[in-house]
């Protein structure tokens, strides 16, 4: 009896899932692009959706030109579940079963490291949208000429902040930053931020200090000791490198402890839903790559944003959406330029990329510390003003001027 139930239940499950995906359509004569993201995470979920949006836009405009005439693009997405072994299986599946000719995607460095042996085996062009850790670059090695890394490396980000703050202090003389405190989450992301900050700000006449905390995203969420250390240090700029789960609770705790730095700055990959609606959010600064406010000044950003909202009825919550969207356009433009998907020709076309991205800059590739093709190097400095993230620096993409100092509560 029980056994019968079990078999029935499993059979129903199987039929159910089959039925949901039973009517797959396989377009003929398309160029296949493989996409690997963590689909259970908002970054990868929206990244894959944005990539699909780009594919549809390109196909609606007639696809790409290759020697045989016009061809449409097809995106095949596989979940990496944030795991190295699953990510490796995803590469194998896309390359050997689906026969994709280009790979895009990537978010967490740990999953990216798992893909690298398979990447190396095939040498197909890869346009990577994630992985900030320098360990990924070391694993790739200097001869990884098929790897096009869009996301800035951790040290690139640190360098761009040093540059940004120098520029801001020069332009707005009332902003003076001498003492800098970094609260960093104790995992790989935070530790790398701390290492980069020590190196890049250490030399420039700044006094720096920092302390780790356990991010709420990983079961922590008590900021008292790190805020106490920060308050004691009395920084002009307080920076926290953590995750979106830390954003509001840390701010609330800082207020409770009457900790008022001149600049209160966060560097999470994304922000919580409705963060801007909180009273505490006003004039909080942030590091990021993209914000909806850029729609006002950047045509590509507006096109991406409107398309995304129209298609999916939700807002892009992190920069991984426009970044993945850009990755598809970069691939499409390179295929059109090379007029083929043949490896060597496509790689040289990718190397010559110059793409006006929705991220507010023209993306092109050049050598980084290790790999030959690094795309974006600069992050932006933004500020929450009236519930919106406004771009402060780089000035050419700026949408507002900074408000300083961060108001006392």
């Amino acid at each position, binding site marked *: 009896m029980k*056994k019968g139930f079990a078999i029935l239940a499993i059979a129903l499950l199987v039929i159910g899932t089959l039925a949901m*995906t039973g009517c797959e359509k396989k377009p003929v004569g398309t160029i296949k692009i493989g996409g690997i993201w963590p689909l259970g995470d908002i970054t990868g979920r929206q990244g894959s959706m944005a990539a699909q949006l780009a594919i549809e836009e390109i196909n609606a405009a007639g696809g790409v030109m290759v020697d045989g005439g016009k061809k449409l693009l097809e995106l095949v997405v596989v979940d990496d579940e944030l795991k190295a072994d699953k990510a490796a299986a995803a590469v*194998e599946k896309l390359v050997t079963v689906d026969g994709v000719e280009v790979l895009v995607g990537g978010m967490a460095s740990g999953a990216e490291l798992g893909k690298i042996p*398979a990447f190396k085996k095939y040498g197909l062009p890869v346009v990577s949208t994630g992985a900030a850790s320098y360990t990924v670059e070391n*694993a790739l090695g200097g001869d990884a000429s098929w790897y096009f890394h869009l996301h800035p490396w951790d040290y690139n980000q640190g360098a761009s902040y040093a540059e940004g703050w120098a520029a801001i202090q020069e332009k707005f003389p009332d902003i003076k930053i001498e003492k800098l405190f970094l609260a960093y989450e*104790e995992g790989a992301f935070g530790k790398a931020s701390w290492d980069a900050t020590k190196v890049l700000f250490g030399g420039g006449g700044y006094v720096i200090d920092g302390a780790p905390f356990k991010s709420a995203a990983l079961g922590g969420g008590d900021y008292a000791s790190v805020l106490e250390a920060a308050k004691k240090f009395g920084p002009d700029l307080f920076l926290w490198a953590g995750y979106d789960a830390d954003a509001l609770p840390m701010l609330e705790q800082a207020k409770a402890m009457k900790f008022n730095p001149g600049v209160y700055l966060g560097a999470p990959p994304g922000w919580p839903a409705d963060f801007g609606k909180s009273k505490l959010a006003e004039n909080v600064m942030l590091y990021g790559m993209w914000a909806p406010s850029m729609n006002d000044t950047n045509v590509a950003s507006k096109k991406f944003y409107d398309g995304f909202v129209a298609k999916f009825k939700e807002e892009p919550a992190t920069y991984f959406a426009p970044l993945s969207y850009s990755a598809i356009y970069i691939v499409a433009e390179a295929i059109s330029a090379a007029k083929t998907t043949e490896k060597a020709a496509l790689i040289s076309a990718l190397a010559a990329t110059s793409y006006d991205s929705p991220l507010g800059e023209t993306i092109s590739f050049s050598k980084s510390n290790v790999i030959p093709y690094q795309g974006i190097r600069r992050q932006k400095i933004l500020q929450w003003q009236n519930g919106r993230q406004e771009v402060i620096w780089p000035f050419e993409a700026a949408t507002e001027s900074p408000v300083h100092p961060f108001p006392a509560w």
Partner: protein
Amino acid sequence: MNRNLLRALAFAAGALAVSLPAFAGAYPLQVARNVIMYMALALTWDMLLRSGQISFGIAGLFGLGAYATALGVLRAGMGDWLSLAFAPVFAGAAALLIGFLILRLRAMYFSIVTLALAEIFRIVIHNLHDFTGGPEGVVLDGVMLGGSAAALYWLTLGGLAVALGASWWFEKSKFHFALTAIRNNETAARSSGVDIFRWLLATFVITSAIQGLLGGIYVQSYGFATPDSVFDANFTLLPLAIALLGGIHSTIGPVFGAILLGLSSEWLKLRLPYGHLVVYGVIIVVVILFMPQGLYGLARKGLRRAEGRAE
């Protein structure tokens, strides 16, 4: 007759497993590697379970072995094969030391202490930045055996062979009687002359060493180790689920369980890109509720019933 049939089936399955690279592509081989890795971990966990001791520390010993291999290569300049051999030695030695402390604990208290030890290993490696690479981990100079799909598959299969061999040996040797006696009635076992502590210690060291070896294989086949990836709680929880779904206290159970969970998770992922893990959870719940003895238990019951009818 029946036993001969089983033996023939097992031999056929083994031959199929070894010859898989001859006819399977890179993708099935990679999936098989993932399945095999968890299968072997589930087996080692089950071997200790046969004494009644429930370990939550698989990820800890797996991670220790992984770092032993990675740091053996990077800091001690070991060759690939030597570093693989170093992993089980290191994990086994660690297990020997902690075994003296913790193998007198029983039931939940043993479980929680193994879990805590796994966390301690992770935190220590996380914090010794200069030696272990800290949270960012370490990267090897590429993967073993030139990254060949077939060779890496055989390497992982080798890890499974060690686990399977040990499990079979446990079933056929004195270990079986000793561990079963300890599980069923410790006092009776002691009074009939079973040196409980020594049997437990031997089992704990052997299973831990194999878990360490698997960690070493993992590192050598992906070329990196980070605390988050090799101490992942999934390396503890999934083997438990696999062994239970397949049927505990047996060699064949975890094999079934790993194939069921491993293949269904991969298949579901391709069918349902968003939300496949929900169905994965449902499968675990349904199997536990309707097949409390696992797949193997169900199969055994079915076989017995079929035999009854035949007679």
